[in-house]
C-alpha cells in the first residue's frame, strides 16, 4: 500500500521557538494516524503546514506520490486535504450552513445558491447527529455545537485526507460517540485521517498507528498492537508518570459554599441547589450546554444570577460583579483560558500580580513592584511554572503553564472556594497530572474545590463527590463510591434507570 | 512659496486675511503685484479657523521676521493684545476691518458697515415696493458678516446714519416696508450654502430678496433661484466680485453687488508697508484712514468693471 501523504524533514522556526525541527510523517491510504505530544510539541503547527495555512521553512511534502507545494488553504483543499481547527474560528454573523460552505459556496456564476447550500449543510449536520438546523445563526450555538459546525465543514470538503486537531475538546460523550461513528464511516469510504487529541482513551480506541512529537521533533511511534496508555505517555513526556491520587477519602469539613435555588440567566426556569464543604473536591458533570459554565459564572458574578441564595463561609453573597465574589473568597478559573484567564501580551509577573495589586499597594494606591516580584517568585516555585523569567510574555508559554499562571493569580488571594471550568481543556497529560496534584493539594489544605469537566475520566479520577447537570437542572448527586461512568451518563442525559433497561 | 535667506536683502512684509475665501485670493493678487512693484517680498496668510489660526500665524510670521504686517482682525475688540504685540515688533496696519483702539498705524479699506448700508440701498432699489429679505453667510459671527448685515438692516429699516444697532442674526426684524427674516449660515460648506437657499425658497415662496454676505453665497443663491425658475420674482443682491456674480448681473438675474475692491486692499496695504519698511512715514495720512471705497456694480457698469478687474488680476 503506497503512502497517501509523506512529509519529510520539515522545519519551522517562529521568533524564539523552533516549532518543528526535522519532523517527518507519513500517512497511508485509509489509515488513521494519531499524533500525540505535550502542549507546544508542534502538533498544530505540523497540521497547519499540511493544510496550507503556514509554509515550512524547509522540507518536502509528497501527496499521492507527487511533490507538492501547499501555498494556501485552497491549494491544500484542491488536493483533498481538509483541516478541523483546534481553535474554533467561525463567522458568527452567518448561519451554520454559511460557515460550513464558507469560501466554497455552491454558486451559479457569481451568485450564491442558498437553498442548495442549506440542504447540503443540513445533510452533513444530520449525519453527525447534531440536533440543530443548518439555518441557525452560529451566534446562537454553544461551544460544542460550534465544534460540530467545524467538523461538518471539514467533512463537506470530500477530502482524501482529513486532519482533526483536537476535535473532541469541547464535545460531550454522546457527541463524541457520534463523531466516532462518522469517523468509522469515513474510513470505510476510503479516507485517511490524522487525529490529534490529548485524550489518550480516544487515541487508543481509534488509532491504527501513533506518532509522537516532543519539542518539535519526532519522538517515535507505536503500532496498533503497541498502543497502551503508559506507552503513549512515555513517548510524549520521555518518562513514566506517577499514578493517580491516593484513593482514601478525606473527611469533609464544615460547609463553605451553600447554594440555594440559584437561577441563571440562561435557564431562568430552573433552580440549582447544592453545598460544598471545606477540603472537598466536587466534580460538576453534564453534557455540553447543560448549564455548568452558567452556574459557575453566576456564582462568580460574571453574569449575575437572576435569583437565589448563596452563602460563602456563612456570609450571604449574590455577586453582581467578580470583585464582590473575590472579596467573599471565591475564585474562578475560566473555560476560555486565552481570552479570559490570562493577558497574553503581558508578562508572567504582570499576570500573577494583577489580582493582588490592590492588597499589596503602597498606601492603598501605588503599585508595589517588589511585592509582585516576590509573589511571582514564590508561586512560580510552588506551581513549577516553566518560564524563562518573570518578564516572559505569557503568550509564549505552553497551555499547561498558562493554566498554572491563572491558578497562581488566584492562589495569591487564598480563596475559600476555587471554581474551575474545564481545568485541563487542551492540556497535555504531563501538565494535566500536575494540575490535578495542585488541586488535590489545595483541597488537602482546606480549600473547597468545584470543577466543571466534560472528561468523565477526569471527573471519576479526582472528585470526592459528583454533581450532574441536565438542561439547567441538577439531575443528581453521586458519592465517590456511587460514581461510575454509566451512572453519570444516565443522569446527564436525563434518562431514568428504567429507560436504560 | 518664497525661498528664505538668499533674497534676504528685500524686506519682507506680511498680509493676513481673516478666512480662506475668493475675496482674499483677489486681495493676494493685489498684494503680490504691489510687492513686485515696490521691491518687497510678500507673505500671504489666510486662516482656516478664524482667530485661533490668526494668532498662531502672526506669531510665526514675527518669528520668521517681517518688517510689516497688514492685518484683518477677525475679532478686533478681543485681539488687542495680539495687535499690541505686532505693533511692538513691527509695523502694523489694519485692512478690511479696523481696530481703532489698537496701536495700528493706519487702516486701509472701507467700513463693512458702510458697505452694508450701500447694500441696503441696493435692496431698496431692487424692491421698491418693499418685501422680505433673507441673508446667507458662511459664519454669522465673523465681524465682516456682522457689520455688513447690520448696515443692511439699519438701512432697510430706515434707521438714521450713525445709529448702529445690534440685532441678533437669526431674529426676524420688521420695518415699515421691509422685513428681515433672518440669516442662514453654512460654515463655508457650499452644498449647505445652496441647500439653505433652497429651503428658504420652500419655506418662504413669496420672499422678495435674497442677500449673499460672503462672496460665494451670491453665486449659490443664483444657482438655487435659477433651478427654482424664480428669476425675476426673487431679487438677488450680494457682496464681492465672483465671476458667477458678475455674470449674473450681466444677464440681469442678479440685481447688483457691493464690491469692496479687495485687489486694492492688497495693493495699497503692501505699498504702505513697503514704504514703511524703507523708513518712509509719509505714506500714513493724518486721518490714519486710507479709503478704498466700496461701490455698487449693477447691470449698467458691470462690463467696464469686469474688464478692469480682469486686467488687474492677470
Amino acid at each position, binding site marked *: 500500500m503506497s503512502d497517501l501523504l509523506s512529509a519529510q524533514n520539515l522545519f519551522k522556526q517562529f521568533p524564539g521557538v523552533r516549532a518543528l525541527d526535522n519532523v517527518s510523517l507519513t500517512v497511508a491510504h485509509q489509515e488513521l494516524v494519531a499524533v500525540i505530544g505535550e502542549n507546544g510539541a508542534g502538533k498544530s503547527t505540523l497540521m497547519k503546514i499540511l493544510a496550507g495555512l503556514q509554509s515550512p521553512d524547509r522540507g518536502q511534502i509528497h501527496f499521492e506520490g507527487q511533490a507538492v507545494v501547499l501555498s494556501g488553504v485552497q491549494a491544500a483543499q484542491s488536493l483533498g486535504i481538509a483541516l478541523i481547527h483546534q481553535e474554533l474560528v467561525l463567522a458568527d454573523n452567518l448561519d451554520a450552513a454559511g460557515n460550513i460552505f464558507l469560501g466554497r459556496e455552491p454558486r451559479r456564476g457569481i451568485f450564491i445558491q442558498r437553498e442548495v447550500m442549506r440542504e447540503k449543510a443540513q445533510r452533513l449536520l444530520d449525519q453527525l447527529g447534531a440536533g440543530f438546523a443548518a439555518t441557525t445563526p452560529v451566534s446562537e450555538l454553544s461551544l460544542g455545537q460550534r465544534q460540530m459546525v467545524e467538523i461538518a465543514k471539514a467533512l463537506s470538503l470530500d477530502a482524501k485526507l482529513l486532519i482533526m486537531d483536537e476535535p473532541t475538546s469541547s464535545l460531550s460523550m454522546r457527541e463524541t460517540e457520534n463523531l466516532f461513528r462518522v469517523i468509522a464511516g469515513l474510513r470505510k469510504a476510503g479516507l485517511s485521517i490524522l487525529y490529534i487529541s490529548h485524550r489518550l482513551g480516544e487515541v487508543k480506541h481509534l488509532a491504527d498507528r501513533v506518532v509522537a512529537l516532543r519539542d518539535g521533533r519526532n519522538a517515535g511511534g507505536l503500532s496498533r498492537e503497541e498502543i497502551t496508555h503508559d506507552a503513549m505517555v512515555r513517548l510524549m513526556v520521555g518518562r513514566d508518570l506517577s499514578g493517580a491520587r491516593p484513593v482514601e477519602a478525606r473527611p469533609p469539613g464544615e460547609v463553605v459554599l451553600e447554594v440555594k435555588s440559584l437561577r441563571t440567566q440562561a435557564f431562568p426556569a430552573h433552580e440549582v441547589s447544592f453545598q460544598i464543604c471545606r477540603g472537598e473536591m466536587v466534580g460538576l458533570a453534564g453534557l455540553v450546554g447543560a448549564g455548568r459554565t452558567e452556574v459557575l459564572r453566576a456564582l462568580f458574578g460574571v453574569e449575575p444570577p437572576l435569583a437565589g441564595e448563596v452563602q460563602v463561609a456563612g456570609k450571604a453573597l449574590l455577586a453582581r460583579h467578580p470583585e464582590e465574589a473575590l472579596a467573599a473568597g471565591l475564585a474562578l478559573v475560566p473555560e476560555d483560558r486565552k481570552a479570559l484567564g490570562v493577558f497574553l501580551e503581558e508578562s508572567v509577573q504582570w499576570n500573577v500580580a494583577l489580582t493582588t495589586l490592590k492588597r499589596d499597594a503602597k498606601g492603598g494606591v501605588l503599585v508595589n513592584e517588589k511585592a509582585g516580584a516576590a509573589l511571582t517568585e514564590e508561586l512560580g516555585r510552588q506551581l513549577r511554572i516553566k518560564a524563562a523569567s518573570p518578564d516572559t510574555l505569557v503568550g509564549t508559554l505552553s497551555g499547561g503553564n498558562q493554566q498554572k499562571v491563572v491558578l497562581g493569580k488566584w492562589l495569591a488571594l487564598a480563596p475559600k472556594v476555587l471554581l474551575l471550568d474545564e481545568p485541563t481543556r487542551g492540556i497535555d497529560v504531563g501538565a494535566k497530572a500536575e494540575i490535578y496534584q495542585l488541586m488535590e493539594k489545595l483541597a488537602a489544605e482546606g480549600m473547597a474545590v468545584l470543577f466543571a469537566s466534560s472528561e468523565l475520566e477526569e471527573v471519576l479520577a479526582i472528585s470526592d463527590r459528583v454533581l450532574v447537570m441536565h438542561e439547567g437542572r441538577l439531575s443528581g448527586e453521586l458519592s465517590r463510591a456511587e460514581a461510575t461512568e454509566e451512572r453519570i451518563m444516565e443522569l446527564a442525559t436525563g434518562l431514568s434507570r428504567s429507560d436504560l433497561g | 512659496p518664497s525661498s528664505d535667506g538668499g533674497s534676504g536683502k528685500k524686506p519682507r512684509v506680511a498680509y493676513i486675511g481673516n478666512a*480662506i475665501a475668493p475675496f482674499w485670493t483677489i486681495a493676494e493678487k493685489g498684494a503680490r503685484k504691489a510687492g513686485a512693484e515696490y521691491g518687497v517680498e510678500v507673505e500671504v496668510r489666510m486662516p482656516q479657523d478664524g482667530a485661533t489660526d490668526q494668532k498662531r500665524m502672526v506669531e510665526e510670521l514675527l518669528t520668521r521676521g517681517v518688517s510689516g504686517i497688514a492685518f484683518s482682525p477677525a475679532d478686533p475688540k478681543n485681539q488687542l493684545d495680539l495687535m499690541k504685540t505686532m505693533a511692538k515688533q513691527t509695523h502694523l496696519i489694519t485692512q478690511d476691518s479696523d481696530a481703532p483702539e489698537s496701536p495700528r498705524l493706519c487702516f486701509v479699506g472701507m467700513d463693512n458697515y458702510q458697505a452694508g448700508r450701500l447694500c441696503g440701498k441696493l435692496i431698496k432699489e431692487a424692491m421698491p415696493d418693499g418685501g422680505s429679505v433673507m441673508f446667507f453667510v458662511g459664519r454669522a459671527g465673523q465681524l465682516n458678516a456682522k457689520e455688513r448685515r447690520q448696515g443692511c438692516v439699519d438701512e432697510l429699516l430706515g434707521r438714521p446714519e450713525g445709529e448702529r444697532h445690534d440685532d441678533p442674526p437669526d431674529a426676524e426684524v420688521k420695518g415699515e416696508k421691509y422685513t428681515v427674516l433672518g440669516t442662514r449660515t453654512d*460654515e*463655508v460648506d457650499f452644498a449647505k450654502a445652496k441647500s439653505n437657499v433652497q429651503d428658504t425658497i420652500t419655506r418662504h415662496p413669496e420672499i422678495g430678496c435674497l442677500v449673499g454676505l460672503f462672496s460665494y453665497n451670491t453665486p449659490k443663491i443664483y444657482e438655487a433661484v435659477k433651478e427654482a425658475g424664480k428669476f425675476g420674482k426673487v431679487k438677488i443682491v450680494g457682496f464681492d466680485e465672483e465671476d458667477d456674480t458678475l455674470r449674473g448681473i450681466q444677464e440681469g438675474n442678479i440685481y447688483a453687488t457691493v464690491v469692496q475692491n479687495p485687489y486694492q486692499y492688497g495693493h495699497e496695504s503692501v505699498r504702505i508697508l513697503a514704504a514703511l519698511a524703507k523708513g518712509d512715514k509719509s505714506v500714513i495720512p493724518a486721518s490714519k484712514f486710507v479709503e478704498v471705497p466700496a461701490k455698487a456694480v449693477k447691470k449698467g457698469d458691470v462690463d467696464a468693471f469686469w474688464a478692469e478687474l480682469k486686467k488687474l488680476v492677470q
Partner: protein
Amino acid sequence: MKKNLGISLLLLLVCVATALGNPNFLIPYNAENLLNWVSLYAIIGVGVSFVIITGGIDLSIGSVVGLVGTMLAWLLTKKGWSVPAALLVTVILSAVIGLVHGLLITKVRLQPFVVTLCGLLIYRGVARWLVHDGTLGFGTAYDGLRWFSNGRIDLPFLGDYRLPVPLVILTVLAGLAAVFLNKTVWGRHLFALGRSEEAARYSGIRTDRLVIVSYVLCSTFAGIGGILFALDVNTVQPASQGNFYELYAIAAAVLGGCSLRGGEGGILGVIIGTALIRILINSINILGIATQLEFVILGVVILLSAITDEVIRRNRGRRQLKTATPTG
C-alpha cells in the same frame, strides 16, 4: 429587513410632522431638492458601508470629495482637458487612493483609522495646494455636464414631480452594491471577514484582496460623489469642500444598521439613514427652527436610534436565550 423598520418609521414620522408643519414640504420643488441631496450623500454613504462591513473605517471621504472636486474643476477650467478625460482621471484617482488605503491596511497592517486620518490631512492639503486655496468654478461652460447633478427627468406618471438625475445614479449604484453584497459570494465573504477575519482566511478566502476591494469601492464612491457635489454647487473651495462628510456618511451607515464592529449592515439601511439625516435638516430649515440646533437634533436622533437599537438587540438576545432549547 426588520432592522430597518424602526428607522423607516422614524423617517415617516419626521416627514408627516414636517408636512403638517409646512405643507410646502411636499411641493415638487422641495421634494426634488431633497431627493437630489439625499442621492448625493447616499452615494458616499453606500461607499463607506463596504468598509464598515469589513470592520474598518474611512475618515478620508470628505477630503476625497474635496480633492476630486478640485481636480475636476482644475483639469477642466485651468488645464483645458476634455470632459471624458477629466472624469476618467478623477475617478481613477479616487480608486487609486482607495487602493493605497487598502494596501497599507492589509499589507503593512496599519489601522484603518490611522491610514485614513492621514489621508484626510494629505488629500485636503494637496487640494488646497493645487489651486493655492483659490476657488474654482465651472462657470456656464459645463451646463451639459452639470445635468448629472441637477438634471430632472420628466416622467408622465409623476405629474408635476420630476425625477432628479442623481437619484437615478444612486439607484443604479446602490442596486449594484446591494446585489454585490447580498447575492454574490464576494459579498458573503465580505460579511464573513468583517466578523472574523481568521474564519474567512482559514476558509481559503483571500481576505486581503477583499479588504482592498472594499476600500477601493469606498473611495471610488466618494470620488463619484465628489464629482457630483462639485457639479451641483458649480464652484469648489478646496479648503472646505466636503469637510466632515465622512462623519455624515458614517452616521448614516450607523443609523442604517451597520455595526462598526463589522459584519453587519446593508445598502437599503444606509440610504434610509441618509434620507433621515437630510430630511431632518430640511425640516429644521423649512419649519424655521434655529439652524444652530440642526447639529443638536441630528446628534440626539442618532444617539437615540443607537440606544433603541441596542436595547432591542439586548431584549431579543434575552428572549432567544429563554426559548433556546439546550441540546444534548
